[in-house]
């Protein structure tokens, strides 16, 4: 029984990093109405640069964190420009983008495939830049576990969980009450309607992309500082966990991300103990698939509503 509780709590705390990553993807989807498949690769490249700065030049943890966030934003804008930039598009094209769940037109297919291709491009750049498998990252993990009636918990994971909860709450309040948040929400509902209302759609898109990238960079730093290292698998990990959390929580819902992360963390922790690492990975993909299968209707309603607006 104690073991079951221990595993569940570990899974719950694992939700912290997952939620941080999911938040970035959710904001990105809310603004672009697209899923950025190069999201994980962007985080990987930034983490590799951070590791290089730390090892080669002895940059302290704070400097590495700032550098990782900056690189994530830069690479994020490169992806945005290559795949999602619609500066020269007509309002009709924007309307098409708002109907993402209603069918995949040629442009949507192109955009998805482009981000798919950039994923591998950026990942390969990262691997060529730092060819080894393991790369040290400023280690901020706690060396002593927090013992609570026979249950071991890592204090650093508790801190990250609290950070994620705080960020989710802060972001939800910002989106609800600020002028900029209102603009982003309007853009998320319907780009065409937002433009007709006089909102500067492009500016909002860029702000949304920057916020999404900053969150991604922050999440990468938080996760890697607990592990003290980064491997080439990190990119895939970021994309998979973030996407699953975002989809489980209802794509585009900031508060839902935390719920999705908790569900994913707990499921993975139990799957790992039952079936090992392959079972854990399979549980993540299965959850993602289930989220897609069961959210179709709600997403359709959402976008039909957006279309009516």
């Amino acid at each position, binding site marked *: 029984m104690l073991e079951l509780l221990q595993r569940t709590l570990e899974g719950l705390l694992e939700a912290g990093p997952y939620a941080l990553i999911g938040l970035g993807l959710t904001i990105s989807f809310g603004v672009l109405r*697209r*899923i950025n498949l190069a999201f994980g690769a962007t985080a990987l490249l930034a983490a590799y640069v951070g590791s290089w700065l730390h090892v080669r030049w002895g940059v302290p943890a704070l400097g590495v964190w700032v550098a990782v966030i900056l690189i994530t934003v830069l690479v994020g804008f490169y992806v945005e420009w*290559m*795949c999602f*930039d619609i500066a020269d598009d007509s309002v009709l094209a924007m309307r098409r983008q708002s109907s*993402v*769940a*209603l*069918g*995949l*037109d*040629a*442009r*949507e*297919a*192109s*955009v*998805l*495939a*482009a*981000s*798919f*291709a*950039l*994923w*591998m*491009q*950026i*990942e*390969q*750049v990262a*691997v*060529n830049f730092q060819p080894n498998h393991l790369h040290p990252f400023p280690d901020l993990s706690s060396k002593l576990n927090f013992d609570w009636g026979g249950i071991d918990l890592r204090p650093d994971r508790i801190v990250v969980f609290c950070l994620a909860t705080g960020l989710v709450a802060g972001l939800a309040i910002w989106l609800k009450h600020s002028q900029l948040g209102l603009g982003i929400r309007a853009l998320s509902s319907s780009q065409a309607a937002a433009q007709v209302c006089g909102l500067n759609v492009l500016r909002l898109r860029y702000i949304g992309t920057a916020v999404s990238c900053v969150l991604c960079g922050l999440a990468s730093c938080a996760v890697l500082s607990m592990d003290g290292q980064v491997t080439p698998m990190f990119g*895939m990990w970021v994309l998979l966990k973030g*996407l699953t959390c975002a*989809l489980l929580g209802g794509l585009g819902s900031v508060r839902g991300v935390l719920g999705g992360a908790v569900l994913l963390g707990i499921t993975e922790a139990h799957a790992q103990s039952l079936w090992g690492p*392959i079972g854990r*990975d*399979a549980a993540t*993909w*299965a959850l*993602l*698939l289930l989220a*897609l*299968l069961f*959210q*179709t209707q709600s*997403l*359709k309603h959402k976008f039909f509503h957006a279309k009516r607006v």
Partner: protein
Amino acid sequence: MNNALCITDPGIGFYTQWIILSLMGLSTWLVLQTGRISLGQQAYFGIGAYAAAVVTVMFNGSLILALLVAWLAGLIFSALISRALQKLSGLQFALATLAIAELVRLGLSSWTWRTTHAKGYEVGPDGVHGFREIRWLFENQMGPETYLSLSAILLLSTLFLIWKISQTKLGLSIQSVGLDSELATVQGEPVASLQTLTQTFAGGIGALAGALYAHQATYIEPAVFDVMLGIHAVGYAMLGGIATPLGPLLGAAFDLGLLEAARIFEGWRMVIFGGLVALFLRWRPGGLLNHAAVSYIKNLFIQRRKSDEHSKFA
């Protein structure tokens, strides 16, 4: 790197691998014709490879039987998946196919079925180590030239079948679904059935590619049909062009040509290919052979024929 995209044989094997990758590109291209994008055609590649290997290694079956079984396995699995994902649209469908492909890969990673071969060594699927000792070509003295011919016949038959279907009412219906599924529904086309039919056929082609690969490489392991293969299959279809089935062949040739060129600056192939695909999709969303290019080439042929007739008449 253990990858279907990693070409090690510079001779005839190179052309066989071009055919295998072209088949994968065609498989993705077919799904694109229904207005959807699949990021998980590599799942059928894996299923086909394992199914064919089981026939020739575990049951001492012939290669033709193995290819047939692989094709059927691909068809059945893709029909089931297509039905299950029918209600998903656009983005959800693309992500669901990726999730299924990874689940298939993980499933085959944990599949172990070892038996002793007549020659004394153990054969069969061995979890993450994959399925080795697929030696049908060596045991039956089938040379690389014969294997290339067989692969070429399969590719040409597939192209011929696609071309024949595109000339029929069924082909036109599929095209109309791909262009605008809502309009096709209004016109009374059975959109869901047409999508399922096309995706089923696409799965069969992917499985054939896997079966050919497994017998050429003499082994198959789950790492071979990872997400990278899916990316390339999409890349071939989108880069080569979505207006004609020759598009994926051109895309695959482009990538392999690039690979040959990239031997000088090894390790940057994916950087160049990924960047080129993204740039092409940005500036030329329909790929190299898009509808405008195909119409232009057709017109060119028509004009030349007309001028030939004129000169003959004169």
